[in-house]
């Protein structure tokens, strides 16, 4: 089947090249049939890549170790769930997933625009297929997922244990969906600039695609953060890692675009800025992909050094140079139609929001690439850490949260002082009340920025809440709807406005979680054994008993040995909860640790145990390496016993398992001290809930409008009336 897979990739490459040629020829010569053939090439690309995708996926599922990719990233002991996901644990497999998702979303875009943007679509299809050609070329010439080894090994190396998490099933596909979706607004922007059609129809289509890519990438980032939170050693939910930052940058730029495109839509302003933003956001998405693939920066998420860096640099250079050329050469059609009426208007607030978001992106870009910049200037690669990022991003984030509350209550064009007083009174009073409450709970000196953020978040809740209530009253006054129907129909009739407001509330909730957990988190590293306790943030954590599972693998990750502890949590004598932290040990296929040591000498993973509530997360993690070190003398003795056994290989293996069981038995009877990380993090759940609210708002905003022939007819009549008077 590998030959079929290779042939599919070659066919895919030929299809992209044909599609690019057909689309461009059809567009230049106004030959509709060639344009249609180009569009069909996108659907064909999806079908061909689906064949390649299925072949590789089946190879993983049936353990076909003749495939180098399968042998390098899966094994007989890898559970089925993770064999399915192991495909994107490899460079080649994840590249195939990337281009397959690209072809899927491109097909969707081509289908949705089949009767729209007729001049733009051929160029957009060419750009989309250009991306497809690039990634298919990488798979054909640089990183084939269908390369074979003969004879096939009996077993594979297995999937990295850190990747054996249910998030592995969904986080990479969501993140790649976000990245690949970003190529669609890019393609339509290029098409619009080439054909000089940066009009209302282009805005309507591009905004929807930009919102979809924003949504997908956001969900991907969130799932990654949640995964990191549960895998101890990854530094919490956000570590300012290069690859995390690479996903955040296009998301921030597209957030800016989604705001500023409204100014273009309503006022015909900022056209150059918007074209540049959408092109830059998509280019940053490719930069993110480059960082993961090239190994140019150190990251826990990256695939390590590879030969893919140069092709990616060329692609990024072409995107940047082409974007700059298009924006400059089309500046005549990108001229603003109006000027800013007032500095106190929604346009002005959106412009400030854009400056902050772009500034934030620049700070993150600088910090992420600082190792390369410093290496080029001084010869020594230096990294900036989390404190550096926090120093610059926290003030910007504070103002952004505040703007999320200001934007909804000021009108387009201009706001009067009297109306401003009326609209800002409630949010200001609410934030002042929050400030007073904060003084009574925590000392201001403990973290002024956190308290300011709480006040800004309350400002958002009050201003958005006020908007919902007023909108609902208007709806009630102008319709015969009941209270609940009026609330729903208010949102349904103006999904973009109210979806956006919901996103703002979600952002405020999310930042409350981030600020509280970052400021007030308390962690202890302690040595515990059964019966011993420690106190963290007023919570007494007592190890009650050790736990162990050999071969049975309670977490279904393929771990050969799982050691753990049961920890009782109490406060002031009252029971709060029970935690079950574990350390998973995976076999070392090289056998370098000796016959018994190799059964648990591979990667070890600490699995966090969490008691989560709206007020706080209490967690315990067992340090796997230190525990393994404490068992090392028993392991050495067991190794010596097996080495002394002159029986056959099977007998030695059986003896190794027996001795491992004896070591585990000893661990349960005479449990050594083990190192635990005990943590109390306030309001972390708010972060996840806030993110869910953000995505719910995004869904409301992106949902196709059911509006509203009735409403439209009414407006037709009104405008016709005006026409009659004119």
């Amino acid at each position, binding site marked *: 089947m590998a*030959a*079929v897979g290779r*042939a*599919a990739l070659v*066919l895919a490459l030929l*299809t992209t090249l044909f*599609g690019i040629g057909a689309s461009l020829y059809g567009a230049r010569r106004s*030959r*509709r*049939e*060639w344009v*249609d*053939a180009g569009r*069909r*090439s996108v*659907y*064909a690309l999806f079908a*061909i890549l689906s*064949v390649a995708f299925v072949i590789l996926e089946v190879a993983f599922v049936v353990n076909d170790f003749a495939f180098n990719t399968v042998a390098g990233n899966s094994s007989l002991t890898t559970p089925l769930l993770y064999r399915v996901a192991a495909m994107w644990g490899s460079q080649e497999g994840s590249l195939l997933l990337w281009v397959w998702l690209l072809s899927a979303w491109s097909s969707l875009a081509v289908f949705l625009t*089949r*009767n*729209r*943007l*007729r*001049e733009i679509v051929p160029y957009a299809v060419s750009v989309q297929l250009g991306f497809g050609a690039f990634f298919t070329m990488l798979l054909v010439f640089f990183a084939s997922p269908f390369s074979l080894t003969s004879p096939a090994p009996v077993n594979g190396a297995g999937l990295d244990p850190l990747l054996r998490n249910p998030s592995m099933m969904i986080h990479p596909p969501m993140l790649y969906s976000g990245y690949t979706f970003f190529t669609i607004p890019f393609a339509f922007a290029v098409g619009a600039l080439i054909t000089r*059609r940066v*009009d*209302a*129809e*282009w*805005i*309507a289509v591009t905004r929807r695609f930009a919102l979809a890519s924003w949504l997908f990438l956001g969900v991907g980032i969130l799932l990654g953060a949640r995964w990191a939170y549960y895998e101890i050693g990854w530094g919490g939910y956000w570590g300012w890692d290069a690859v995390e930052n690479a996903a955040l940058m296009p998301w921030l730029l597209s957030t800016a675009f989604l705001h500023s495109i409204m100014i273009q*839509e*309503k006022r015909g302003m900022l056209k150059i800025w918007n074209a540049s933003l959408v092109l830059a956001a998509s280019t940053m998405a490719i930069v993110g992909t480059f960082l993961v693939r090239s190994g140019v920066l150190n990251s826990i998420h990256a695939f390590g050094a590879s030969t893919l860096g140069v092709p990616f640099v060329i692609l990024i250079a072409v995107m940047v140079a082409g974007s700059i050329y298009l924006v400059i050469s089309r500046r005549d059609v990108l001229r603003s139609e109006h000027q800013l009426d007032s500095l106190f208007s929604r346009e002005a607030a959106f412009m400030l929001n854009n400056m902050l978001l772009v500034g934030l992106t620049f700070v993150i870009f600088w910090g992420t690439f600082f190792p390369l910049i410093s290496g080029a200037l001084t010869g020594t690669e230096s990294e900036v850490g989390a404190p550096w990022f926090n120093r610059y991003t926290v003030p910007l984030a504070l103002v952004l949260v505040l703007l999320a509350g200001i934007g909804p*209550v*000021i*009108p*387009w*064009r*201009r*706001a*009067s002082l*009297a*109306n401003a007083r*009326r*609209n800002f009174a409630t949010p200001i009073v609410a934030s002042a009340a929050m400030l007073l409450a904060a003084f009574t709970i925590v000392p201001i000196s403990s973290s002024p920025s956190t308290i300011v953020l709480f006040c800004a978040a309350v400002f958002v809740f009050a201003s958005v809440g006020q*908007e919902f209530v*007023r*909108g609902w009253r*208007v709806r009630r006054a102008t319709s015969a709807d009941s209270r609940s129907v009026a609330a729903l129909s208010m949102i349904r009739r*103006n999904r973009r*406005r109210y979806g956006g407001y919901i996103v703002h509330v979600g952002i405020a909730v999310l930042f409350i979680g981030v600020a509280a957990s970052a400021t007030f988190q308390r962690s202890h590293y302690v040595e515990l054994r059964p019966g011993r306790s420690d106190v963290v943030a007023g919570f007494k954590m007592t190890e009650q008993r050790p736990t162990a599972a050999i071969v049975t693998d309670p977490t279904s990750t393929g771990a050969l040995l799982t050691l753990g502890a049961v920890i009782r949590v109490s406060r002031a004598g009252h029971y709060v909860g029970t935690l079950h932290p574990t350390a998973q040990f995976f076999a070392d296929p090289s056998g370098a640790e000796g016959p018994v040591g190799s059964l648990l000498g591979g990667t070890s993973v600490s699995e966090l145990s969490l008691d989560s509530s709206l007020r706080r997360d209490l967690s315990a993690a067992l340090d796997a390496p230190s525990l393994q070190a404490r068992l090392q003398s028993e392991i050495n003795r067991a190794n010596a016993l097996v080495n002394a056994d002159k029986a056959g290989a099977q007998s030695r293996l059986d003896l190794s398992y027996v001795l491992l069981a004896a070591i585990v038995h000893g661990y349960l009877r005479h449990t050594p001290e083990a190192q635990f990380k005990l943590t109390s993090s306030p309001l972390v759940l708010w972060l996840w809930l806030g993110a869910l609210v953000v995505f719910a708002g995004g869904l409301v905003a992106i949902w196709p409008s059911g509006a509203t022939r009735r*409403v*439209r007819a009414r*407006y037709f009549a*009104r*405008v016709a009336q*005006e*026409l009659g008077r*004119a």
Partner: protein
Amino acid sequence: MLVAVLVAVVVALAFLTWFVGAPLRNPSAGEPAIDSRRRALEAARDAKYQEIRDNELDYRTGKLSDEDFRTIDRQLRAEAVEILRLLDDLR
């Protein structure tokens, strides 16, 4: 095995050529061209209607004074009328 792979590839190639090349074999079967200028104006008209509604909602929710609302509303309706006139010209 090699023969089977070759046959599969040839069949796939034939199907691809048939599917992708269908519009080239029968050019008249393509969808009718839609006037892009009209589509752009219709999109502009819809956006303008939305803007009029937004302005009304801003007024009713207390974000605009009477005078500001009337000025902006008049301006937006004039712009909508101009778009309708351009649409009429295309007919």
